[in-house]
């Protein structure tokens, strides 16, 4: 048992390493991501600057905090790119899901470590350049305090897992749906708009932010960013991190259930 587990880790590490090497080979994707994220980052920063003309503080937030918010959010959205949906859609369409399932490690384990490998190479190739570009042209995104920075890290890791598990649960739909692309688009836009990625929750009407606070989306972007800029007091933030952990658990259970259900029903055509 113990031995089997050790072999699995080696296999996972191999998937992880291969993915990093593969990402390093495709240079254009890297520059493309930076260009795209810079457009979004600068447009958002100037949008806030224009809105804040004539105001010092709105909803307890200063314009400098909004700039920090924008840069850190841009860095996070690169960090949160997942391929699990595309991967599942393609393997189901082409039938390669069968060979993936033959491998001696769990199907979604392969996809997770591929995504993790991609994320790792993005940190060096994209997240750091965005940090430097943002710092030079917009302003250095300083965290509220060292303690908040320490709290930010576990919160981002949980956010990464929530984001990935949500994508993985969503991707199981591909085993039954014919064309997933429009749905993937809907999901992408819902997350971008309702998670605080571009516009923080506190600007939304109260009824809407109350609803959104119950859903998992805000625990992907909003909570880590709230922590980074020190929007709330420690007690409230820790309480929110509790809810974040709870969502992580719920999504994990859902993921385990869905994964078991769909892999049982895989039917590959052809011989």
């Amino acid at each position, binding site marked *: 048992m113990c031995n089997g587990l050790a072999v699995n880790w080696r296999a996972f590490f191999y998937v992880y390493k291969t993915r990093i090497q593969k990402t390093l080979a495709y240079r254009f994707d890297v520059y*493309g991501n930076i260009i*795209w994220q810079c457009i979004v980052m600068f447009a958002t920063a100037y949008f806030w600057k*224009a809105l804040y003309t004539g*105001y010092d503080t709105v909803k307890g937030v200063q314009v400098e905090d909004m700039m920090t918010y924008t840069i850190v959010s841009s860095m996070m959205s690169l960090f949160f790119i997942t391929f699990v949906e595309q991967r599942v859609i393609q393997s189901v369409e082409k039938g390669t899901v069968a060979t993936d399932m033959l491998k001696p490690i769990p199907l979604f384990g392969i996809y997770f470590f591929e995504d993790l490998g991609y994320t790792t190479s993005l940190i060096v190739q994209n997240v750091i350049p965005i940090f430097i570009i943002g710092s030079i042209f917009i302003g250095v995104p300083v965290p509220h305090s060292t303690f908040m920075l320490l709290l930010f890290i576990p919160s981002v890791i949980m956010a990464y897992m929530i984001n990935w598990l949500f994508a993985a649960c969503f991707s199981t739909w591909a085993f039954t749906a014919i064309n997933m692309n429009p749905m993937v688009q809907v999901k992408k*836009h*819902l997350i971008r708009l309702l998670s605080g990625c571009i516009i923080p929750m506190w*600007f*939304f009407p109260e009824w809407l932010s109350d609803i959104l606070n119950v859903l998992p989306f805000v625990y992907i972007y909003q909570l880590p960013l709230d922590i980074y800029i020190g929007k709330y007091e420690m007690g409230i933030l820790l309480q929110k991190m509790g809810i974040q952990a709870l969502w992580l658990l719920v999504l994990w259970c859902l993921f385990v259930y869905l994964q078991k259900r769909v892999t049982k029903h895989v039917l590959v055509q052809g011989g």
Partner: protein
Amino acid sequence: MLQTMKHYSKVSLAHLRIAVLTVMEYPANMLGWLLSNPIQFILGFATIKFVVEEFGSVCGWGYGQLAFLYGISVISHALSMIFFVQGWFMGYYVIEGDFDRYLLRPMSVLYQFCFTKFNLVGITDLIPGICVFVYGCLQIDYVWTLKNTIYILVTLVGATFIRGGIYLIIGSSSFWTKSINDFGGYTQELFDKTTMYPISMYPESFQFVLTYLLPIGWVSFYPTAELLGIPNGRFAWDGAVWMTLVVGIIVFVAAAIIFKCSLKRYESAGN
């Protein structure tokens, strides 16, 4: 001359018929986009509205006026998607040798490229565009005189040509680089950020670029600012509505020339 035009329009109509039949063959696919595209644009506008309501206005634009701007932007985006989306995918045509077929037929290659493949999925973008636009018109009590109606139509035609021309120019780069260069996503992001918001919120150097070098400012910002009588920055011209049409024609003619020159470098696909 008349004979040729008749022939060309007959060919286009035949292709339009095929496009409609294709869509009818896969209704579920269309239904998916019919759900996803409106959600994306309507939610996108809703978030802008919440924020601008909080602050009052952005660069002198209230949210009713922004809805008008956003509407023009999305409608012209939809029209450009219907007629010119191929520009985004020109790289695939170049690499896979698809221009062979066009070159063999006794018709203009550019004409065939633009007007023998109608992307009816673009209609699903048209619906949210019109919704937000009508909402904006109601908010600001836009008066629908004959003159104003003509102005809107002229703007939309000009804007569609500017977008289409830019897609073609970007796509033509594939003839020179011999690679796919799929810039679609970045182009869309850039257009979204510069046509859905007033460009007067950006620094003057960038406004200059958007006015003269990459004339995206004319797509929605300058004509809308003139129609609604809002201050429109340093580089504005009088008669912006007609200028949009002129700029549209110039950009498209330039794109046609660039396309023609680039086509000479076409080598077809080989092994």
